[in-house]
């Protein structure tokens, strides 16, 4: 039952992409399939059981308290009644009560939940209060009392009693779900289109709650069968009507336990437990369907773990810290490489051994003090790349090829992919830190800001005193422009911009050499974005770290980067100095992208944009991934994956572009 609670927390996650195929996939999982088979088996038995029964379940015979035999498969009772027949008849009553109670209480749940959630206001307050009161009242004692007042109540009475106490939970979950659905855009869109409220509830809200209603229904069936068995066992139902509970009642009353007649009480309990398990398994399937994170929990974990351990180890253990030489401003001609990424490939492992490359054959270098901007649209692999560099990618993502080399300030090279867990922990944050996209999600909601900075310091500098650490935390906060008195604030008490500053303070905690920033300002408004970006650049000049800045906002990137890397479909399509890139983008995709941004200053220029939409990585186009959208594409583009061609620029530097128009051997007379 506790498992069911979590659904409430996750109810709002039932995403729009939940597809019909996901249903089938959920069904195909062995545990869910087992659950479905068990449930169907018992349902069939409940329907046809009485016709299968070899004896009248109440008929007494001479074979008293007989152990299981060919004549009586499950033995007999004290009065010689056939237990197998009682089980078959009992299945019907138990299932009838279970399903009946579930139908009635689910109906009540849906009614109350939908009304409360959709109507809102006073109606919601009242209905929620009633539901919450019923939720807190201990159900079984109340049920016992109600049952006791209905002496010898038949199945209908029991259904009534169970429903009264069983509807509240479902109502609460459905109310929360309705509330979240009501706020969803498609309900607002339906309203704006002019649809009737009743139609909206029926067509937009209800169908999207089917999974949760089903889960609540199955949960109530289990609960009702257990409750009915409990009541019957206590003799609070009609004890002459055969159900699994009444079998146990008679076994208990006749001291079957003391006489060692195990066959009398074992089958009924097992049947209840088995049916309960079956229903719960089906529910887990629904749970996984609703919450995709659960579904992915196991996939590729082992394979990915193996991939890491197989790599060779080539690093010294915890090398001494070397202080960094004084910050030297970056020049475009610098050759002081700090990070080299070579032919990196990251695959997403699918459920049936399939794999989708998200990052493919990516090579670039980062020099000391440089700001490297990585631009790309959704699905270009830029975020996957950020995580792979820091080795923070999670299964099912796995690095399947390539190398990442880090050069320490003293010149020693570190093979990042070869580090073991402990070495990796030392490497990360000490040498390289990362600032995540959404500060709201990346800060622990239950920990003070100060603590979240301090614990990184503590983990890497265990010898530092508490006083020094506290001083350092304050210093870091001031560095990023947060008032020192906010050190005891929780993330939710800060504004979006302040949270992102706190994230940067965490990133700076150990004065790293490289900071990877994954869309650090995407969720912020332009004015706040400007504040944050200026802060980052100011700190970079002061502290001399290198930055890998990832964003979809090419204009921003050109302003702040020294070098720009453009990604498309998991590959690098262009790599150039920022100013060269802005003046003369070489790849057709880069050109299209630059011509998609409206400008504020200067005369209005023509915006051309790019036709079509980004490629589907599961099923990428052959050859150059951009060719279906490319105005310059020719036949060879759909056959050959273009390598990066080195091109001269007007400033005398070089630009790399992966486009066949630069290959003199294949591009016949195409304009550049």
């Amino acid at each position, binding site marked *: 039952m506790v498992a069911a609670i979590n659904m409430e927390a996750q109810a709002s996650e039932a995403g729009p992409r939940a597809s019909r195929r996901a249903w089938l996939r959920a069904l195909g999982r062995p545990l869910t399939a087992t659950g479905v088979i068990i449930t169907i088996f018992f349902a069939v038995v409940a329907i046809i059981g009485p016709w299968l029964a070899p004896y009248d379940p109440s008929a007494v015979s001479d074979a008293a308290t007989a152990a299981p035999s060919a004549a009586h498969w499950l033995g007999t009772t004290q009065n010689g009644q056939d237990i197998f027949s009682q089980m078959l008849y009992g299945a019907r009553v138990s299932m009838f009560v279970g399903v009946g109670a579930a139908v009635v209480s689910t109906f009540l749940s849906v009614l109350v939940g939908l009304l409360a959630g959709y109507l809102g206001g006073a109606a919601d307050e009242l209905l929620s209060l009633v539901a919450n009161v019923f939720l807190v009242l201990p159900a079984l004692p109340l049920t016992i009392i109600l049952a006791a007042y209905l002496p010898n109540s038949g199945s209908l009475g029991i259904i009534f009693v169970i429903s009264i106490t069983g509807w509240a939970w479902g109502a609460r979950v459905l109310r929360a779900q309705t509330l979240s659905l009501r706020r969803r855009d498609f309900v607002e869109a339906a309203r704006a289109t002019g649809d009737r409220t009743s139609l909206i509830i029926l067509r937009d809200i209800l169908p999207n709650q089917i999974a949760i209603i089903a889960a609540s229904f199955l949960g109530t069936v289990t609960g009702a069968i257990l409750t009915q068995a409990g009541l019957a066992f206590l003799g609070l139902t009609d004890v002459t009507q055969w159900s699994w509970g009444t079998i146990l009642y008679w076994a208990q009353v006749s001291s079957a336990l*003391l006489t060692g007649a195990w066959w009398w009480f074992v089958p009924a309990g097992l049947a209840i437990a088995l049916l309960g398990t079956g229903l719960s398994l089906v529910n887990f399937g629904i749970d996984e369907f609703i919450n995709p994170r659960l579904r992915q929990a196991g996939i590729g974990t082992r394979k990915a773990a193996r991939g890491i351990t197989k790599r060779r180890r080539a690093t010294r253990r915890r090398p001494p810290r070397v202080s960094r030489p004084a910050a030297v401003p970056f020049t475009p001609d610098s050759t002081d490489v700090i990070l080299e990424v070579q032919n990196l490939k990251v695959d997403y492992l699918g459920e049936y051994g399939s794999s989708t490359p998200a990052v493919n054959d990516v090579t670039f270098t980062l020099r000391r003090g440089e700001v490297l901007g990585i631009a790309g649209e959704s699905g270009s692999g830029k975020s996957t790349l950020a995580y792979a560099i820091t080795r923070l990618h999670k299964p099912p993502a796995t690095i399947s090829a390539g190398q990442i080399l880090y050069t320490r300030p003293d010149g020693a090279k570190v093979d990042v992919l070869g580090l073991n867990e402990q070495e990796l922990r030392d490497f990360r944050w000490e040498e390289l830190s990362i600032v995540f996209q959404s500060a709201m999600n990346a800060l622990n909601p239950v920990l003070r800001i100060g603590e979240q900075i301090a614990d990184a310091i503590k983990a890497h500098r265990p010898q530092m005193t508490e006083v020094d650490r506290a001083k350092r935390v304050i210093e870091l906060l001031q560095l990023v422009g947060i008032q020192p008195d906010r050190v005891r604030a929780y993330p939710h008490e800060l504004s979006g911009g302040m949270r992102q500053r706190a994230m940067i303070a965490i990133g700076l905690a150990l004065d790293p050499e490289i900071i990877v920033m994954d869309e650090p300002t995407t969720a912020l408004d332009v004015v706040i974005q400007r504040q944050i970006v200026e802060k980052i650049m100011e700190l970079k000049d002061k502290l001399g770290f290198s930055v890998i800045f990832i964003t979809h906002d090419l204009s921003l990137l050109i302003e702040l980067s020294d070098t720009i890397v453009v990604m498309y479909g998991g590959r690098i399509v262009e790599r150039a100095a920022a100013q060269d890139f802005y003046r003369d983008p070489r790849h057709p995709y880069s050109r299209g992208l630059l011509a998609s941004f409206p400008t504020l200053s200067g005369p209005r220029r023509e915006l051309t944009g790019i036709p079509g939409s980004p490629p589907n990585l599961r099923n990428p186009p052959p050859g150059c991934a951009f060719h279906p959208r490319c105005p310059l594409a020719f036949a060879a583009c759909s056959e050959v994956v273009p390598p990066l061609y080195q091109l001269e620029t007007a400033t005398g530097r070089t630009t790399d572009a992966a486009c066949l128009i630069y290959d003199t051997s294949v591009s016949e007379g195409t304009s550049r």
Partner: protein
Amino acid sequence: MKSLLRRAFFYLVTAWAAISLNFLIPRIMPGDPAEHLINQFHGRLSPSAVTAMRALFGQSDKSLWQQYLDYWHNVFTGDFGLSYAYYPATVSEVLRTSMWWTLVLITLCTVIAFVLGTGLGVLAGWKRGTWLDSLVPVTTFVSSIPYFWFAIIVVLLFAMTLKWFPISGGYSWDATIGLNWPFISSALYYAVLPAFTIIAASVGGWLIGMRNMMVTTLSEDYVRLAEAKGLPPRRVVFTYAARNAMLPSLSGFAMSLGFVVGGSIVTEVVFNYPGIGTVLFKAAQAADYPLMSAIFLFITVMVLIANLLADVAYTFLDPRTREA
């Protein structure tokens, strides 16, 4: 603090609802339970007891409102009348002797099951994708077993076959109830099997709930950041993942607790444990309505207090609820 006050207010409303429900149920139930009950005693009841019985079912000259006020007066003075199952003992006396058994047993079992289940859930969530995943179907099966049936099997195995523990009761017949070692040790000895049953049957629910929340929480960005910061795994698991994953479990405490309490009551019956569950069973058998409703009230109040404690813990763990 404000949110806690609001919760406390809600529990007061719930308590009021429970007490009023208790007052109403006998008055709206079909048939004539009073007559039925009086007949059962075959004239052994004193005339005053008969009047009290009729009053209980609303058969009185007083107005419904006056009856309601009287009822509240009785609730506050702890006067629930005579018990018919334990005649001539009063309901309060019966409650007073049995409540401690249940309180101690259930409190201990709930705490142990919660800690154990949550702890195992944290582990199973953290080590997802390993053999620990097989805990899920196993615990699902165990938590689908009716408590009382599990109790029967436990008795069969450990008391009857292996004879490690006593079959039933709450303490050895030669011990005198009180704060003396022979009694306490014997009570502990007798409590092992019931406690084991309740813990084993309820631990699975906590485990699965916690595992699923852990899996969900572990893919949160803040956990990823904690790992990236190079924090020791223990801090990542407990301070970052588990502390956040636990919140839904705590807020769902109410429902789970009601479930555990219900299961424990039936378990007590199997072990003939001298607690409230067994008393409730006997009261239900004898149609002892005053005793039943008093027990219901008692359990409700206890559950409400436990919920309030869970809310305090929640407020302590989640700073977001601390302000209004």
